[in-house]
């Protein structure tokens, strides 16, 4: 189910004094089973872009194709698109409303027409995926801790069993432990559940570790695209647009500049550690 956007432009409040151009002529394809990291400074248009992928925003100009079908053409059910392309918003815990965790997680599948008899299984599966105890099902979501609330909200999207999952800054505001849990959940969904993942973030460290392909945005446009190695070679450019490279990559780049024989194309702590150990052994 590839997602393709062509020449997408979007302007908020078009025709009003507060008009704000958020996307300019964006073309991008997301293939099945890919893990794409979408990065960019705050305000670069990441959230606006991903809200087009499931038809929450209608482009000012340009087209969105899912499975080759223009999603804004006649006869396309946006609801079924939203079932296929799940979307976890930033701070998703702020959208919780159910009296119980069960009711909240079941909201999505219920809207999608899943029969009542199946709902319980769906909810159990989703809660198990995010690592929440099933005993929480009858509790009020408002009594839970911050990290647990976020997991309930993510479960609410997973319960619709989308093939593609978009996560908009899912680790924002979490403590390091919560962050690791969410990131390993995302990795699990990609590797074990074979879902297509689009991870929006402005943290290089988060994205570099997981994504196979990075898409870098600035001022509403895609400015860089490629594997993490390729993208992180442009350290100076990334810094100029308010991003950077992972600290460990930066370390290798500095070492190389000073004449040490290292390969700077590494971006996880483990790989960099290996590279430095190799360097030390030659000295």
């Amino acid at each position, binding site marked *: 189910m590839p997602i393709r956007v062509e020449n997408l432009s979007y302007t908020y409040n078009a025709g*009003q*004094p507060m008009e704000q151009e958020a996307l300019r002529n964006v073309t991008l394809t997301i293939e099945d089973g890919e893990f794409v990291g979408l990065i960019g400074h705050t305000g670069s248009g990441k959230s606006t872009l991903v809200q087009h992928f499931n038809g929450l925003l209608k482009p000012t100009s340009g087209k969105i194709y899912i499975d080759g079908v223009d999603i804004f053409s006649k006869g396309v059910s946006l609801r079924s698109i939203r079932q296929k392309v799940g979307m976890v918003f930033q701070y*998703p815990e702020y959208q919780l*409303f159910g009296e119980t965790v069960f009711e909240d997680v079941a*909201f999505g599948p219920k809207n999608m027409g899943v029969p009542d008899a199946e709902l319980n299984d769906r909810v159990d599966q989703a809660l198990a995926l995010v690592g929440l105890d099933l005993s929480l099902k009858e509790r009020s979501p408002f009594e839970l801790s911050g990290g647990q609330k976020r997991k309930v909200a993510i479960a609410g999207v997973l319960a619709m069993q989308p093939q593609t999952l978009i996560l908009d800054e899912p680790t924002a505001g979490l403590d390091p432990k919560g962050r690791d849990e969410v990131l390993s959940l995302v990795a699990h969904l990609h590797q074990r559940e074979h879902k297509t993942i689009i991870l929006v973030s402005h943290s290089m460290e988060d994205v570099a570790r997981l994504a196979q392909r990075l898409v870098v945005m600035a001022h509403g446009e895609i400015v860089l695209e490629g594997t993490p190695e390729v993208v992180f070679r442009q350290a100076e450019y990334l810094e100029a647009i308010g991003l950077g490279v992972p600290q460990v990559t930066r370390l290798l780049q500095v070492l190389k500049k000073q004449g040490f024989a290292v390969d700077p194309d590494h971006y996880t702590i483990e790989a960099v550690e290996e590279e430095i150990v190799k360097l030390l052994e030659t000295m």
Partner: protein
Amino acid sequence: MAMMKNITIGQYVPGESIVHQLDPRTKILATFLFIALLFLVETFTGYALGALMLFVIVLLSRIPVKFVLRGIRPLMFIIVLTLCLHFFMTEGRVILQIWFLKLTYEGLIRGLMMVSRLILLIIGSSLLTLTTSPILLTDGIESLLKPFRAVGVPAHELAMMMTIALRFIPTLVEETEKIMKAQMARGADFESGNIFHRAKSLIPILIPLFVSAFRRADELAVAMEARGYRGGEGRTRFRVLKFTRRDAAALILVAGLVILVGFCF
């Protein structure tokens, strides 16, 4: 969602024009004078002169005329209703009969008058908010209400409440949109079904909205106390309102025009 964006009454369009720079008290008083004018005038010439006054002010404010006119759109229904009620419910000389509906000459005149009055009223008052930032507007109201404190009007508290409400309206609108989108991503539908169904579909929006409004109120109260807020007594101001000669001139001009037009037409 789209509807909320169309409401220009109460919106502020930042700018540097002469109208923007006037003291908010001048603009509030001038608006009241203009409204008084609308109730004094009884002829179309009078309304045309009123419209001309507004037009000059809009030009001076450098806000696009089209944008100002858009403020009428959400009230179109009321305008059309007023027009119809006057057209067909006024007794008098019948000039057109459609089935049992009788359009009278008197009704035609009364309807057009009422609608002119309504439209000028809407544009006049939206000009005030379009050119005055909410903060300055409440400062102005507080300052104008001060003389009435002696008779028990809590001027400062009212102004503070208004400031906070105005400050949070855009936040709440934004938040509503976000929550709506998040629930739509989960297949929620706010547009189809009967009234009962639709009311029920609002629950997933209203609950998160209330939860966050209460949280915000709490945080705001704590933040205000942390900065030593204890009401209006003895409080000094960062923005001091200044009534300049230009304000006096503007006010005298408006008052003069209102008296002239109001009592001659």
